[in-house]
């Protein structure tokens, strides 16, 4: 009787965690229902606001080509004093999109770890699974969940808010990179909150500093992409997301395990 050297099957173990979470979510939907409901309610609420404001802004001349209007007639009164950098409809809509996605993510993505602690299944998982496989499996699940939510919210956003996107590939690039960043951030912060006794009020203050660069790059990037102007935000965004996820993976063992 001896202990044979372990034959690692890290991907298989990661996939097992991912599939377990998918199966569990399909049977007792908590995270996806929370995120979708939150996202939809926010989107509908915002759509009423922006429609009124949008019409108002258009009537006032705050439209995407106001620069051309100013060039044609420097004395034109476009909102009286509209300085450079004032949020245009593109920027406002880009900001609203990410606000919807941010708060939806905050409401649902940490559930994957909180549920383990609430259901008291975390000790069995700690006992049997490699911490790195747990992190990767949960990250995969959160990425899948976030992209699913985006695939539902974004078409509705297009339909209800008419953002007039000019550079589609770049816009989708920002959307995907930003969503991955949100999923990555909420995975590690969700684990920290779950370990802190499920104090969900800690979620926002812990996540916000980590998510702030992602939000800044994503909002500016999507605004630029929708206006069709170059904006060098994608590389910094992707770099930040890669660095943040790598660091989270390295630190996860200290968050997850007591040893």
């Amino acid at each position, binding site marked *: *009787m*001896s*202990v044979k*050297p*372990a*034959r*690692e*099957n890290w991907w*298989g*173990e990661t*996939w*097992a*965690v991912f*599939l*377990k979470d998918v*199966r*569990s979510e399909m*049977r*007792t939907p908590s995270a996806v229902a929370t995120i979708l409901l939150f996202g939809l309610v926010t989107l509908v609420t915002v759509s009423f606001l922006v429609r009124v404001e949008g019409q108002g802004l258009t009537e006032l001349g705050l439209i995407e080509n106001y620069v051309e209007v100013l060039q044609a007639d420097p004395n034109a009164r476009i909102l009286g004093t509209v300085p450079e950098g004032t949020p245009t409809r593109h920027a406002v809509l880009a900001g609203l999109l990410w606000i919807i996605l941010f708060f939806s993510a905050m409401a649902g993505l940490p559930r994957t770890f909180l549920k383990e602690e609430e*259901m*008291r*299944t975390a*000790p*069995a*998982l*700690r*006992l*049997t*699974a*490699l911490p790195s*496989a747990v992190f990767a499996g949960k990250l995969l699940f959160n990425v899948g969940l976030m992209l699913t939510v985006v695939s539902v919210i974004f078409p509705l956003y297009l339909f209800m808010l008419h953002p007039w996107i000019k550079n589609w590939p770049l816009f989708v690039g920002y959307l995907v990179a930003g969503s991955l960043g949100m999923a990555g951030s909420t995975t590690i912060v969700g684990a920290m909150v779950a370990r802190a006794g499920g104090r969900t009020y800690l979620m926002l203050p812990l996540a916000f500093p980590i998510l702030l660069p992602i939000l800044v790059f994503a909002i500016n990037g999507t605004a630029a992409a929708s206006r069709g102007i170059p904006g060098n935000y994608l590389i910094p965004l992707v770099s930040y997301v890669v660095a943040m996820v790598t660091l989270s993976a390295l630190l996860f063992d200290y968050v997850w395990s*007591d*040893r």
Partner: protein
Amino acid sequence: MVGPSATPLERSTPYDADCRTPVVFNSRGDLTVSNAFWDNPRGPATAPATREAGRNPLFELHLDNVTKRFGHRSVFSNVCAEVRTGETLVVTGHNGSGKSTLLSVIAGLLPPDRGAVRFVSGGKDVAVDDRRRILSLVAPDLTLYPELTALENLEFFARVRGLPWQREKAVQLLARVGLAGRERDLTGTFSSGMRVRAKYAVALYSEPLVLLLDEPTAMLDESGVQIVDQVISEQRSRGILVLATNDPRETRYGDLFLHLGGTA
């Protein structure tokens, strides 16, 4: 055996400066301490001399001066034990004495504040990451996934441990613990006794070298108790068994005893 595990059999006193918690042999003739309090209906366990002669060096569990505190409160301190293949360590003590905590420390779920838990195979320490394949724990605090079926729970824990998934073996295990025909039912719909049975199936799937049982027959009916009897008998021939209990029906399995929270 008493004292640090390096030279356990040379010690003549149950207590020493480093190791305050005695582990006594469950053999009337071999007890070296005056507070031996258990009677073993199965007869003498391996005596120190015969134990040394027949020592199986392949697999051992070592508790080296293990101390655990929660804040300023000391749960137990300087616990020492050495358990070898084929032996059963029974941990007893009043409520709150730290029995379950000790099992959690052995399982690696909680870190000791001082000392170490080591698994030694063929003279070499087993890596921490490999423990999850050789150790199983059945405890009231350990919960299976209620939204998965019994079979899915077994599959998940097998795969996440990196073990090959054998459906037939899992079905047989579930039948063995009395859950035949309930494989496809969600464990969330099980009674508390059935959940315990499912936990045993999950624990036994890996054929663990070390099996830790916290209150092994709690919630089980008579047939469940008989199943646990069989499990314990098999484990004694396969590897190491650690029981945390105060139930006299269960303490009779012990070869070694560890009483936490003072002298019995």
